[in-house]
């Protein structure tokens, strides 16, 4: 007989299957490139924010430097492609592994820092990464790298005529990261990460190896963020440090999860579905002069969440979970 817990888990999978089915059908009637573009970005940020959520939501280690891993992913696959002809599918995997390794190296000193100091360290490290890439001639320094696009090809993952292949890849990535999160929730790491987030001292006393837990969360989180970065590089087909490693990306990975519900399974996707179209519409409404408007917009979003719904949008609908028997 299935327990209430197992039924709840199964229902989550069913909901996810339905959502994915809808998302597969969604762009079929849409020919407008501008709208397609918004759809790609929305699904991509759902995947990225879901990755961010693993470290910052579940494990509670708030990173505002995930642009570093995003940029590493973008540069790893692009450099491998442009300089060595390695197809981006391998480049993505390589970028993910390099980013995970860097997350572990960075985590070694940083996870000994508590709370806000950790967050500040992530910001600083991402800025250092940005400066390094701005000055690294091999990677094109400030002028960046162009990915040659010869025509539509799944092998080199480049498409000219339609954005739909990009959309479906991003959707697949979002689904994979969702599934990873889903399985982690009911694993030892899932319990340990939340325990570390809620109370580190109590967690330790119950046998949780806090440092190791944080390292594991950071590696998984960085891996998928970098895969997202590789994807983005292919999608825009031209990268430079200012377009893949700036603070804005760190913010855009954090915000959907915070808006939707930090440390929850559906928060990042929900948040991205609301925030990204709004951001894009605001941007185009404001025209070319609206660069600073983005930041004002994010600031407003953060303030509204903090004041009205600190637990995020998801808490409006999911209060049923712990209803008394």
């Amino acid at each position, binding site marked *: 007989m299935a327990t209430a817990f197992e039924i709840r888990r199964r229902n989550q999978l069913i909901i996810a299957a339905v959502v994915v089915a809808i998302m597969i059908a969604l762009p079929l009637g849409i020919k407008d490139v501008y709208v397609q573009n918004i759809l790609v970005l929305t699904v991509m940020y759902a995947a990225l924010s879901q990755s961010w959520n693993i470290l910052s939501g579940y494990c509670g280690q708030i990173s505002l430097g995930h642009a570093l891993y995003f940029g590493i992913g973008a540069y790893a696959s692009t450099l491998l492609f442009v300089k060595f002809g390695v197809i981006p599918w391998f480049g993505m995997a390589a970028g993910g592994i390099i980013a995970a390794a860097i997350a572990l190296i960075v985590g070694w000193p940083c996870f000994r820092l508590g709370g806000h100091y950790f967050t500040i360290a992530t910001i600083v490290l991402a800025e250092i990464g940005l400066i390094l890439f701005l000055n690294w001639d091999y990677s094109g320094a400030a002028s960046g790298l162009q990915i040659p696009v010869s025509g539509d090809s799944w092998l080199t993952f480049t498409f000219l005529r339609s954005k739909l292949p990009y959309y479906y890849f991003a959707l697949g990535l979002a689904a994979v990261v969702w599934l990873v999160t889903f399985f982690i929730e009911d694993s030892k790491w899932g*319990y340990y990460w939340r*325990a570390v987030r*809620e109370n580190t*001292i*109590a967690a330790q*006393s*119950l046998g949780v190896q806090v440092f190791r837990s944080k390292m594991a969360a950071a590696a998984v989180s960085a891996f998928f963020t970098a895969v997202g970065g590789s994807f983005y590089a292919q999608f825009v087909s031209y990268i430079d440090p200012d377009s893949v490693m700036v603070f804005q990306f760190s913010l855009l990975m954090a915000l959907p999860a915070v808006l939707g519900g930090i440390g929850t399974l559906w928060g990042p996707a929900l948040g991205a579905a609301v925030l990204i179209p709004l951001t894009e519409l605001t941007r185009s409404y404001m025209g070319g002069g609206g660069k600073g408007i983005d930041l004002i917009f994010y600031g407003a979003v953060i303030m509204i969440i903090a004041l009205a719904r600190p637990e995020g949008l998801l808490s409006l609908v999911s209060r049923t979970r*712990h209803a008394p028997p």
Partner: protein
Amino acid sequence: MSMLLETEALTVHFGGILANSDISISVNKGEILGLIGPNGAGKSTLFNLVAGTYRPTSGRIRFEGRDITPLPPAARCKLGIARTFQVVKSFETMSVLENVVVGALVRFTNTKAAREEAHRVLDVTGLSRRAEADARELTPPEKRRLEVARALATQPKLLLLDEVLTGLTPAEAQKGVELVRKIRDLGVTVVMVEHVMEVVMPLVDRAIVLDLGRVLVEGAPQAIVRDPKVIQAYLGDRFHA
């Protein structure tokens, strides 16, 4: 009777405060040991040293004959030392069951097995009814029970209970006393810090009194309550408080 835990001249300073000074005590397998003393005597500090949350300035701690002084808290838990916190530290946004699963995972790698174990522990501690509630929704007495449940789920050999009966109504306290007896009968050695003498003294096999960071006296509960030094320490505390 064999010795489970032994401290050797444990000493810890916090700035100018000598919180524990030269504490050498032992805990026997299977007993319920009472640790009492006025406010600020150093009882919680001693728990924190034994569980590894604090590092001693000097001294040694031996568990089952093995020197555990350098081990971090998680490793001590794995060896069989569990503790509750005087100021409860629930995982607030996790359910009661999930709180307990965290403890159980030190013995079970499989989450299903850990959940089953957690359900058993909730049953023993009388929290089954609240399994699905978030920890933050619990009443203060329920939170103390959760502290005990979580610690128990790690299947400890030694359980350190820091004021788990404090602030309860007499009826609740009586239930707590029964729970502690039940835990001992499961084969767990218990050390408990408690202020209310009427509650602890009938429960414990032996008591140690701390005062100003030192061991004042040690012995059978009946002898302790009549000891002039103990009366003095408690009266002195009352005059200063």
